[in-house]
């Protein structure tokens, strides 16, 4: 089951650039939250702060409190532990090119030293089914390289890979932006199904996509979260003038 995420006074820097400025928001459990805003506004950085991927860049740092299920991920846990509980799907599909489909999906468990073959088999099947890819690949799980699939299939495999470690939160950084419309709609259907079991945070440039999949939407601008509300309200009756300008296409 998913957990809620409470963010308090989150600040992040890349070198001298203050990319996130005092973010305060509560993301409810088992809901999908969309993050919208123009390029470079900090939404990707925000998502990367939620699983401490931000700090893998040597010049990056972050301060503040991010609570997941009661624990502060910056104080009470190691990055590695957090990332096992918070899955991440990236903008471009990033399969491990040397691994088969099976090994790609099982990689989170295998690379962490898990070896029980029966459990691995079950996990791979369950994850691929959750990612709506099982039927398409079940006959060449170990025969084909993960990189030999189409772009849309690769991205669903990456989602299956993230689900295989049984996370509570799923972060998606523009998961469909490199895909064609058919693959995009498959990913959106998937998000719709997955949000009953996981807390999903999705960054998107596509406002229709935000409207389709997310209950809540946050609007970022210049490193600040300008507005956070139910998706319906953001798109029909935004409080802030800047939000309205952005969603009506007046800038950005």
């Amino acid at each position: 089951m998913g957990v809620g995420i409470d963010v308090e006074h989150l600040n992040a820097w890349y070198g001298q650039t203050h990319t996130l400025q005092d973010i305060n928001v509560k993301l409810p459990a088992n809901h999908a939250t969309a993050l919208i805003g123009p390029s470079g506004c900090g939404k990707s950085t925000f998502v990367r702060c939620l699983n401490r991927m931000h700090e893998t860049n040597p010049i990056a740092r972050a301060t503040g409190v991010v609570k997941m299920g009661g624990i502060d991920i910056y104080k009470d846990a190691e990055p590695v532990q957090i990332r096992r509980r918070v899955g991440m799907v990236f903008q471009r599909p990033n399969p491990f090119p040397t691994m088969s489909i099976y090994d790609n999906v099982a990689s989170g468990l295998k690379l962490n030293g898990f070896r029980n073959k029966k459990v691995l088999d079950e996990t791979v099947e369950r994850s691929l089914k959750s990612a709506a890819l099982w039927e398409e690949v079940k006959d060449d799980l170990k025969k084909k390289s993960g990189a030999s699939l189409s772009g849309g299939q690769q991205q669903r495999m990456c989602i299956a890979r993230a689900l295989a470690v049984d996370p509570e939160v799923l972060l998606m950084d523009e998961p469909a932006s490199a895909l064609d419309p058919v693959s995009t709609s498959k990913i959106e259907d998937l998000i719709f199904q997955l949000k009953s079991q996981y807390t999903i945070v999705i960054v998107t440039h596509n406002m229709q996509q935000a409207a389709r999949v997310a209950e809540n939407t946050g609007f970022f601008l210049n490193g600040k979260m300008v507005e956070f509300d139910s998706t319906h309200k953001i798109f029909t009756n935004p409080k802030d003038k800047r939000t309205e300008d952005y969603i009506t296409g007046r800038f950005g």
Partner: protein
Amino acid sequence: MNTSALHTPPPGRDDGPLHPGLNMNSRWIRINRARRYAANHLVTVLAIASTVVVILPLIAILAYLLFMGAHSLNLNFFTKIPAPVGEQGGGMANAIAGSGIVLAIASVLGIPIGIAAGVYLAEFGRGRMLAAAVRFTADVLNGVPSIVMGIAAYSLVVVKQGHFSALAGGVALAVMMVPTITRTTEEMLATVPNAIREAALGLGVPKWRTVLSVSLKTASPGIITGCMLAFARVAGETAPLLFTAFGNQFWSFKLNEPIAALPLQIYVYAISPYDEWHRLAWAGSLVLIVLIMVSVTLVRIYAARGMMKGAS
């Protein structure tokens, strides 16, 4: 935008009336097409010629070695130790075995250190002073003449031990292998997309495991090639062995004693005044180059097979 502007000929050329849309038969396009065909063929021919120029010396050397050495090759060459001057027969069996031993020592020492240093440069040392220093040192080391490496190994190992040894030869060759392997490993790791590292880190895989099972594994074909290049390069080295492995004329498998090596034996025989020894030196050169080619090819085939398991 005025579409006809796209098809306006350069000033000074008259193509007659301009048509909207692309007229493939306009004079300007016809001239251009002929020029592009000519350029295309010219560059293709140049590329093929360059390839031939690159491959030709290898073929020429191999052919000449076959011509000069093949007729002196027989079973004795591979099974007998050198015979005294004036006696017929005799071979280089001890030198072949000695080369194998010295190269094994060099690989066991040089490959792990070289790869580890390359991993440090690519995965852990980005933007650090120490990494810049290591990189610079590796580049300088790469350009150091092999005889100097031999002197270094002489003063570090031979003088300390008090005698020549297979070990000293192995150390000298290992030091020569390290910079090549370090730089190739670094370059190959740099070609691994960061997205793949992030994929592993994002799954909660620790950094060391990511480097080992994802970065290194993805880059392994290139790294193996680099190791093989370094191996092939030192396999033919004579100078560093002159005052380390030293050479001998009899069977020896002790790492702590002087040992024969193929390049050394070729060197000694080639500068001798005896025709019989000259013939054996030619045969030895042929065997050396064939052994290097065979071992490099075998490793690459084996490595390629290992790769097939995961990839398609």
